[in-house]
């Protein structure tokens, strides 16, 4: 579990008095492994055409992305002091005004199509870069995901990897109750993807899974990452209100204590 990243996510959300806490805590281990182990992208090669591309479809958990990008050196972490503030580039959803962000996202159901297009462009130019996208399980009822899923297998995009941050909760309630999308593995397999399940908080498992890409030649790869919304802070875990909740001073202290002390 990526403890330091969690502390920073909470620190900046607490300071901003805004943010998507639960989802940032559920996806941050995935981002940790992608950026620190799997992907060939960093500030040093961000202008290179050969860099791996990451597109965050679930844009609302931008705090996790910003914290990881700062750690990678794309910008000074102190910039995040302005998170969600007037005149700051560090707004509530990914924007290309922030160094390291590949694409503006926020309205859901866009990321997979964007990633498919990017993966097609790599094939077209015989480039080896790979495309990664992070989807939320809550955004999967958006039909454009399934249009893109069809297209990805139609064009045999084995340079594309989608990860579903499957935390089982969305703003209105449990994903299974809002609009059930299970069984996700069978659905994506039927759409021509090669699918693997993983514990989305087990860094080693995530590393090994991504190291095995592509899972099958000629097929796009889908990683269904089973996660816990609010992971790492006991009172936030699996609690719907932390989708968009901001901790009080007491709650913040308690969370930091659980994570091993204030930064």
């Amino acid at each position, binding site marked *: 579990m990526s403890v330091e990243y969690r502390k920073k996510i909470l620190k900046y959300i607490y300071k901003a008095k805004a943010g998507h806490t639960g989802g940032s805590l559920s996806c941050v281990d995935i981002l940790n492994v992608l950026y620190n182990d799997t992907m060939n992208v960093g500030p040093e090669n961000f202008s290179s055409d050969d860099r791996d591309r990451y597109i965050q479809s679930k844009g609302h958990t931008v705090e996790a992305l910003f914290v990881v990008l700062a750690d990678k050196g794309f910008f000074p972490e102190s910039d995040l002091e302005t998170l969600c503030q007037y005149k700051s580039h560090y707004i509530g959803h990914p924007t290309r005004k922030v160094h390291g962000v590949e694409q*503006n996202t926020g309205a859901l159901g866009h990321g997979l*199509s964007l990633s498919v297009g*990017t993966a097609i462009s790599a094939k077209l130019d015989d480039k080896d870069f790979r495309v990664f996208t992070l989807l939320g399980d809550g955004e999967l009822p958006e039909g454009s995901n399934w249009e893109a899923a069809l297209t990805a297998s139609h064009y045999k995009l084995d340079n594309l990897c989608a990860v579903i941050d499957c935390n089982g909760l969305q703003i209105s309630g449990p994903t299974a109750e809002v609009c059930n999308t299970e069984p996700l593995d069978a659905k994506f397999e039927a759409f021509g993807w090669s699918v693997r399940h993983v514990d989305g908080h087990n860094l080693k498992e995530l590393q090994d899974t991504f190291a095995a890409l592509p899972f099958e030649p000629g097929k796009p790869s889908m990683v269904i990452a089973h996660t816990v919304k609010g992971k790492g802070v006991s009172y936030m875990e699996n609690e719907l209100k932390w989708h968009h909740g901001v901790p009080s001073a007491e709650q913040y202290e308690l969370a930091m204590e659980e994570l091993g002390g204030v930064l």
Partner: protein
Amino acid sequence: MKKYTYTEKKDTRSGFGAGMTELGQENDNVVALCADLVGSLKLAPFIKENPDRFFQCGISEANMIGLSAGLTIGGKIPFATTFANFATGRVYDQIRQSVAYSNKNVKICASHAGITLGEDGATHQILEDIGMMRMLPGMTVINPCDYNQTKAATKAIADFEGPVYLRFGRPVVPIFTDPDQKFEIGKAWMVNEGKDVSIFATGHLVWEAIQAGEMLEKEGIDAEIINIHTIKPLDEEAILKSVRKTGCAVSAEEHNRLGGLGDSIAQVLVKNQLVPQEYVAVDDSFGESGTPEKLMEKYGLTAKDIVAAAKRAIERKS
């Protein structure tokens, strides 16, 4: 009145297809996408010559716009093509976020705009597309007047960095502009200089405006006719220069009177130079089945309607 003649009529969508064919030969970065309407968009030659640079998306327009934005991340210049209705209203959120807000170099190329696609009726006849597209920050909106101009515009937007909405149509209309014209985005084209009324027309209504100008001339009215092929960015200077001379304006477009060229011009006039303006446009209505000619007549988009509007505008001059 300057004389305009033609020897041939063609659909503007064929001008788009011809432009794409040349772009296929000249610019390796140009790629085309289509949502199952290859024949309607006249893309066959491009696809034949560049099979690797064409992506059939099937009937999934939202995905096509997303793919296009993604292709720009890999440095391509995607031309996303379908009917105007499905290229705009159906996929507004994709265009808004993934193209306009992200300032992606995507060219949204839309055929069968307006009522003149004819027989298919209201579901396919979009009259709101210019309004939707021009409201998007950073979006360039182009509506050329004939085959030659559409071809030239198609080629010009490939050299322009930024999102573009290019609108054209299905009916055959006279070809009266120069085949070798240089298309300047955002620069209005003076069709005829006059002093009594300014007629600002876009799309194939430019030809109707020319016909109207000849009819007005017979009644002793000297009409200035300007082709506003680029609705955004609007050539405000040309518009103001014209109305400061003539003292009144007519706008003519195959679009809802709400949100289109007429409103674009009205904003300029209200802010800078208050003169009477009359609209030739569809009066906040959906379309219906019929031949283009019949529909143009019923919805008030013909040369005769422009003549009547010009007279009303002149009468309102104080």
